[in-house]
């Protein structure tokens, strides 16, 4: 740990439902005590690492794209940040298809590289659906995120990028997120009859659909 290049920050739970105000949300922890530089101050003996100013990796993003985007969609843009020089836009779930069409046709993000999800069970809306877009003309990447609660449906973007088809099926398979408007939403990697969604955080790594395993493989456990 001693030779690590960056001072680790305290873990931050990404901000969930921040309204798009004039100051986009930055997940920086609240102001640290200002007496960081004085070594002779002994009041806090509990914290072993000396409180240095944290490295801010997530900064608000306000480039031309975001300005155009905000002008067009206004409050549908919930958050625009940059993390390690990668642009991330969090948008309203209901407007996802409209926004995707705009990004594909007007901003020329013509390829959907990757579509996946992340589970944050402690959050009010536990899922992030994450789309990584690429623009051939601009040679740029952009990450688009929507939040969804447990039983909430996410609009399918298969009509915008055909590449989303299998990837949305995989997210459905692994997280149980339903994509409304998907042409053929069914499991893709796991068997059709499998119960449970393995990439959810409350699905233990040793957990399995024991009934399925017993019935189809004739064994008690595949572990």
């Amino acid at each position, binding site marked *: 740990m001693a030779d690590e*290049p960056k001072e680790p920050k305290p873990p931050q739970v990404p901000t969930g439902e921040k309204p798009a105000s004039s100051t986009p949300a930055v997940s920086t922890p609240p102001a640290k005590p200002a007496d960081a530089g004085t070594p002779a101050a002994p009041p806090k003996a509990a914290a072993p690492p000396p409180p240095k100013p944290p490295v801010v990796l997530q900064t608000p993003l306000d480039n031309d794209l975001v300005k155009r985007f905000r002008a067009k969609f206004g409050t549908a843009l919930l958050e625009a940040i940059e993390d390690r020089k990668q642009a991330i836009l969090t948008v309203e779930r209901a407007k996802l298809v409209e926004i995707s069409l705009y990004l594909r046709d007007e901003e020329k993000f013509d390829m959907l590289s990757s579509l996946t999800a992340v589970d944050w069970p402690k959050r009010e809306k536990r899922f992030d659906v994450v789309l990584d877009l690429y623009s051939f003309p601009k040679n740029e990447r952009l990450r688009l995120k929507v939040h969804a609660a447990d039983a909430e449906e996410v609009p399918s973007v298969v009509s915008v990028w055909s590449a989303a088809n299998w990837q949305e099926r995989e997210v459905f398979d692994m997280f149980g997120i339903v994509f409304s408007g998907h042409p053929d939403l069914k499991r893709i990697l796991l068997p059709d009859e499998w119960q449970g969604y393995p990439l959810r955080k409350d699905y233990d790594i040793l957990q399995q659909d024991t009934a399925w395993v017993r019935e189809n493989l004739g064994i008690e456990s595949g572990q």
Partner: protein
Amino acid sequence: MGPQHPSTHGVLRVKLKLDGERVIGSECIIGYLHRGVEKIAENRTYQQFAPYVDRMDYVAAVSSGLGYCEAIEKLLIVEAPPRARVIRTILTELQRIASHLLWLGTHALDIGALTPLFYCFREREEILKIFEKYCGARLTTHAFRIGGLQYEAYDTFEKDVERFCKDFESRIVEYEDLLTQNRIWIGRTKGVGILTAADAIAFGVTGPVLRASGVKWDIRKAAPYAAYDQYKFEIPVGTTGDTYDRYLVRMEEMRQSRLICLQAIENIPTGPIMAKVGKVLKPPPGEVYHAIEAPKGEIGYYVVSDGTVMPYRVHIRPPSFINLQAFDRMVRGHLVADVVAIIGTIDIVLGEVDR
């Protein structure tokens, strides 16, 4: 067709809807090799997970490993030292040649040409020997570490690579003599499985398949990683996007990889091979998406850190999985015999499709 058909390169099952001998619809059934790699990642430390990525595309493990290591380096905000990056580049390009050779041999075998397989495996063996000398393993190499390299290049490394590259020039001519002007080969591949550039982009197809459709795009040029910005090489592109074009593109890519290796061994910088990273890796919270040009296309890693020693989430964007989506578009209207050629030309590895 499948899942245990010899031409499906693993366990791929394809449901075909036929009108006589003609294919009018298809559906790929995958998942037979699903091992839950992404779930495993959440229960291992960053270093512990590195060997697992080798087991996805097991014929191009070095490339998968490079993508993973670089993604975590990006997350940690460290950079591998120059020497490590050049050695990584050499090994990754050798791996690209090895992967393309395996593809060429098996693809030709599927179509009915038996000889190229023996020729291709002869050269692939030389590459695997270099890997073995370098890190002790031939397939699932785990050649790189987060932050650089574990092993220094062995004494005759440059000489071995140079000898291979020198020999390889005439070896490619041998393959081309067997196939490029071969009337049966042309008959079986020209005009088969055409994928237009617009379709390829819509399906997210990358790698040689995309380039054969006429899109000049290679991550090594578009967003250079490792040491690719130091070397001169061309990106071959096709015109029609058929199976023959994909063959030509991959053949030219092998030539270009050979040139990159030759340039790289000329001048391997001296210095450390490992950046300063701790024994315990705790990347600051946040997320990255990092993509590299694997032999089969864009392999991307989306990694989310919550500041602990284990990744909060790792998503792998496997080129085989995404490229296979375009299979249905490519196969419609062709004969059953062409299905085998089209599966081969996409160059999939089921370990990577299913993860």
